[in-house]
């Protein structure tokens, strides 16, 4: 149903009691920095934005290997004020969507988010948990648009 290995992660979270779910989310959040961009590396698409009132700075870096069936890889830079849930979702998405195509990412439904986070944590002012997915979809959309424009040029 979901691209990459997202299905198995969703399945894992859905069967965890709330306390273990929180611990695992914190563990994912702790590892978010592993998915930061590599200095000096070239990416097919870079999109860095700062929103001081909501989410701080989030940078999306996309690489697509067309020789490998359009396999995508995301790197994400996160400002210091980015919420823990958003950091956790960054780890989960970078890991689970690795290898998915830009079109698969664009088509990925967002309904897995509450399945992972749990109803208790999806609430007012925690909606930034959807933020990284929406930014990744945005990057995939721009990548595909540029690719189509290149093909028709």
């Amino acid at each position, binding site marked *: 149903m979901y691209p990459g290995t997202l299905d198995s992660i969703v399945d894992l979270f859905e069967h965890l009691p709330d306390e273990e779910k929180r611990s695992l989310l914190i563990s994912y959040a702790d590892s978010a920095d592993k998915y930061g961009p590599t200095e000096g590396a070239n990416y097919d698409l870079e999109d860095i934005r700062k*929103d001081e009132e*909501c*989410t701080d700075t989030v940078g999306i870096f996309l690489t697509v290997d067309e020789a490998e069936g359009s396999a995508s890889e995301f790197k994400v830079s996160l400002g210091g*004020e980015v*919420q*823990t849930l958003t950091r956790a979702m960054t780890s989960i998405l970078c890991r689970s969507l690795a290898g998915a195509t830009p079109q698969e990412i664009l088509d990925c439904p967002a309904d897995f988010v509450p399945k992972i986070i749990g109803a208790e*944590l999806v609430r*007012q002012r*925690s909606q930034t948990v*959807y933020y990284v997915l929406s930014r990744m979809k945005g990057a995939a959309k721009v990548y595909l648009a540029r690719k189509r424009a290149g093909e028709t040029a």
Partner: protein
Amino acid sequence: MSDDTKFSAYAHPEKLVSTEWLAANLDAPNTRIVESNEDILLYDTNHIPGAVHIDWIADLNDKTIRDYVSPEAFAALCERNGITPDTTVIFYGDKSNWWAAYALWVFELYGHTNSKLVDGGSAKWKAEGRELTREKPSITNSTYPVPGKRDDARIRAFYHEALAHAEAKKPMVDVRSPGEFSGAVTHMPEYPQEGVLRGGHIPGAKSCPWSTAANPDATFKTAEELRKIYTEDLALGDADDIVAYCRIGERSSHTWFVLTYLLGYKNVRNYDGSWTEWGNMVRSPIEKSV
């Protein structure tokens, strides 16, 4: 400038503690350190040793009606966090202390005024590399008598009061970002559930974003700087009846704290219904500047 020098120039220096003071007084008697955040998992990630967590939704807001918890629920919250009416509650948190100021304000609604903020909140404590832990403190329940009633009238404004205030052309401070004030945006990009049907601001309100009172390290600006912003530029007078508002009441709690305790204005109310109420209310008068 030292923290002591900076604090002594405020109207109520006793309402602030520095991170340095707190680090040296983590076990101060009759004191409870409370973390309040926007980030729901931040306390679980790490916090100041001995701090408890009070959540703005789960602990302070009624589950059904848009209002604060009952006096009974407030007393129970204090009891499970080891707080008595004599306890000095020291609040700190993320987002430049938005939610710490909000929690402090809500505590005052129930008459608990023995409270302080940590200047700079979580950001400064962490930037200074001070001790953090994931260990939750073991708390012995206290006894907290149920407050008679909430003292809403003194520091809280409701819609009809905010409307009368605007009609009387009394000072009203809109602490949201310029885009929200002008009406260019009807919700912040990632807070769509706080959207409104109309954008703009309350007629006569002056724009003064909460962040003008804060330094980049999340500390408050000096008394001199704050007087320039609010007393000179906004022309707020000592005897003025002032209402501050934002979107849901947390950023305006920050400004309420600045006006009340750092500058000493005596009549400041937080309109916590704020723009999510005003911008959705049928026939609310609205000004736009776009």
